[in-house]
């Protein structure tokens, strides 16, 4: 029995190598960098757990939410929306020609949510009370309650969507088939749940009309968050696809690059559409609430920068890329769009939040806060690579080829 066990471990986890070989093969510069980031990240985690939020962060009574909420949760969840966008398009709207993306997309959403929640545990002062939220103390009047429950539900949905791949890897055909049938239902449920909580993350800021700068505060915050999650999510699909197809070339034997590029341009078209919708809504909001006089000063300048450099410019880039069939431009615009989502979320949660406070007294993250977030991202990337190396994500499992 024990012998059998070790051979399973060797086959599935070490990919047929001995432990020594495994270590030697992974002794690369990239891994060393990851290892160093992880040391700092884990140090920050332990430091936070032992000494509390006060010593470990720059948070204060004035700034109760900092980098961990702004980046790990608001940015992290927005960029973990590939499942909501591309996954839905494939499973629900029958865009089968994009099926190539289905499994990587399910994986990135799953890992995005799992690691965002993992990071969140360090921000919660009483993380061990989290079960209370699920079991009996329900604050129905809270937007955060909706967010919390939807995170929980959606993580389970992502698990369901990815489960067939795991069982293909474990070679359990019956279990795999059972879950494969559930995927469509999970997707239907998932699109509703994901749409709900992506907008609810914007809804969190509806209660701070006096603290968030009027240029960013709007009754339309929920749709803004939802739409930006859509273009952010698809951008991540483009970026991630580009990287994984370079790094895992050996897994893709019958890979049709031309066809793949065509798909990327198709995705670019979708991002452009979402970006224009977002821009029009933003302008509508701007005109309706008559925000002209806020355009003076730093915040006005910064608002214009956000809207032009990170929404209008990428939208034009995508348009030009789609028209002229320029794949490199699609990729570049995707990077800019994803970066724009990061800027937008940090603006709302940190920079334009309590905008009346002078800059000298504003919150800025402590190094431990950044280290922890960097550590969590590193863990995410390593896990992603671990799974891609072992499970049939980028390619079809030979046994189940006919069933996709």
């Amino acid at each position, binding site marked *: 029995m024990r012998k059998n066990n070790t051979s399973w471990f060797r086959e599935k986890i070490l990919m047929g190598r001995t432990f020594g070989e495994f270590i030697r093969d992974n002794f690369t510069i990239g891994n060393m960098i990851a290892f160093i980031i992880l040391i700092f990240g884990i140090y920050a985690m332990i430091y936070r757990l032992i000494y509390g939020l006060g010593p470990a962060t720059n948070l204060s009574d004035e700034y109760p939410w900092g980098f961990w909420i702004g980046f790990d949760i608001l940015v992290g969840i927005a960029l973990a929306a590939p499942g909501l966008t591309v996954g839905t398009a494939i499973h629900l709207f029958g865009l089968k020609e994009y099926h190539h993306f289905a499994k990587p997309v399910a994986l990135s959403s799953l890992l995005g949510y799992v690691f965002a929640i993992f990071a969140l545990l360090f921000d919660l002062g009483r993380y061990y009370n989290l079960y209370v939220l699920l079991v009996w103390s*329900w604050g129905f009047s809270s937007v955060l309650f909706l967010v919390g429950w939807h995170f929980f539900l959606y993580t389970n949905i992502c698990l369901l969507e990815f489960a067939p791949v795991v069982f293909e890897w474990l070679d359990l055909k019956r279990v795999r088939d059972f879950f494969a049938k559930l995927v469509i239902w999970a997707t239907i449920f998932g699109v509703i749940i994901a749409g709900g909580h992506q907008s609810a993350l914007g809804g969190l800021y509806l*209660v701070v009309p006096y603290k968030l700068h009027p240029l960013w505060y709007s009754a339309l915050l929920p749709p803004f968050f939802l739409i930006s999650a859509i273009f952010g999510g698809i951008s991540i699909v483009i970026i991630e696809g580009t990287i994984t197809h370079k790094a895992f070339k050996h897994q893709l034997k019958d890979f049709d690059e031309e066809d793949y590029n065509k798909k990327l341009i198709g995705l670019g078209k979708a991002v452009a559409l979402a970006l224009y919708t977002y821009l029009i809504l933003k302008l509508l909001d701007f005109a309706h609430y008559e925000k002209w006089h806020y355009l003076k000063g730093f915040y006005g300048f910064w608002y214009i920068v956000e809207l032009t450099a990170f929404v209008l410019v990428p939208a034009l880039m995508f348009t030009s890329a789609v028209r002229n069939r320029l794949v490199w431009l699609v990729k570049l615009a995707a990077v800019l769009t994803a970066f724009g989502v990061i800027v937008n979320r940090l603006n709302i949660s940190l920079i334009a939040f309590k905008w009346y406070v002078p800059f000298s007294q504003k919150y800025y993250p402590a190094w431990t806060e950044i280290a922890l977030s960097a550590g969590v991202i590193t863990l995410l990337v390593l896990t992603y690579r671990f799974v891609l190396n072992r499970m049939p994500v980028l390619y079809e499992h030979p046994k189940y080829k006919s069933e996709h």
Partner: protein
Amino acid sequence: MELNRREFLKGLGVLAGTLIITKPSISQAYSKGDAPSIYATGNKANEKVWKIYEERKKKHLPPPEEPYAVLVDVSKCIGCRRCEWACNEWNKNPNRPLKEFEASVHQKPSVFDKIRRPHAGNFTVVNRFYTKEGTPLYVKRQCMHCVHPACYSACLVEAYRKTPEGPVIYNKSVCLGCRYCMVACPFDIPAYEYYDPITPQITKCTMCYDRIVEGKVPACVEICTAGALTFGKRSEILKLAWERIHNNPGKYVHHVYGEKEVGGTSWLYISPVPFEEIGFPAVDETPIPEYSERFLFAVKLFEVVGAWPLVFGAYYQISRSRKKKQSIKEEKGEGYEKK
């Protein structure tokens, strides 16, 4: 060999030590100019008050005919800070001798040089502002005990309650420590025990719920000899406030802060200068919870009623058109296209 290993282990220990034992000392933080009350932990006042609330609920004790309120007359406050001392004393927060509090009004430099706010170890503060003529005004701040509390509506585990007596109270046993209540509060009142790593809690003024259910007045009101604080039923307090404004023409601005702000509060203020000049936020009459209520209703409506037919309709339409395409192809003799 043995020695080498020992030295190696020693080195490891030193390394681990330098990494871990760098807890910032409180004196270090003092030098940054932070208020010491930020570092306080383990206050029991909020917990005690919650227990009394639960017990009273269990015994089905009748609520008072009307919620209570406190009137703060800014023009009468002399800045003696005795209310701060009494509050610390009653709620067992870290305290200093009463004389030190009373002295700060004449001291230079004094605590008044900085605008302060409540922290983990103090539930109320008195700040000093100057009018255009240069006369000092002393303004006591604490939880406003909103009629429609933002903290309550923001809390995802219902750790807050608005009691029928008026106070808004907090239950740490279900709290997750997410601090969304602090984000939501329009007056920036709830404070957090940032220096407690395991059981941090929110702390805030309880309006001395434990005292008023026994028929007493809040500790700060009791000690105030300047006549700046008056406790009573909210409607009577409101009447008193307007009476003072009308009976002393020119002395007060025509505004009772808290009468309508964010839907009304249980602490009411009258002042000789506009409230924006003494540190109060200019807020609408809309209760903060209303901002999220509308959205939550829309989301629930969409998720429970709207989305399902839409999604299924789309799915049905698409699968039907796909089948059509497929059957056309089959008729033409083409197989299902290779993916």
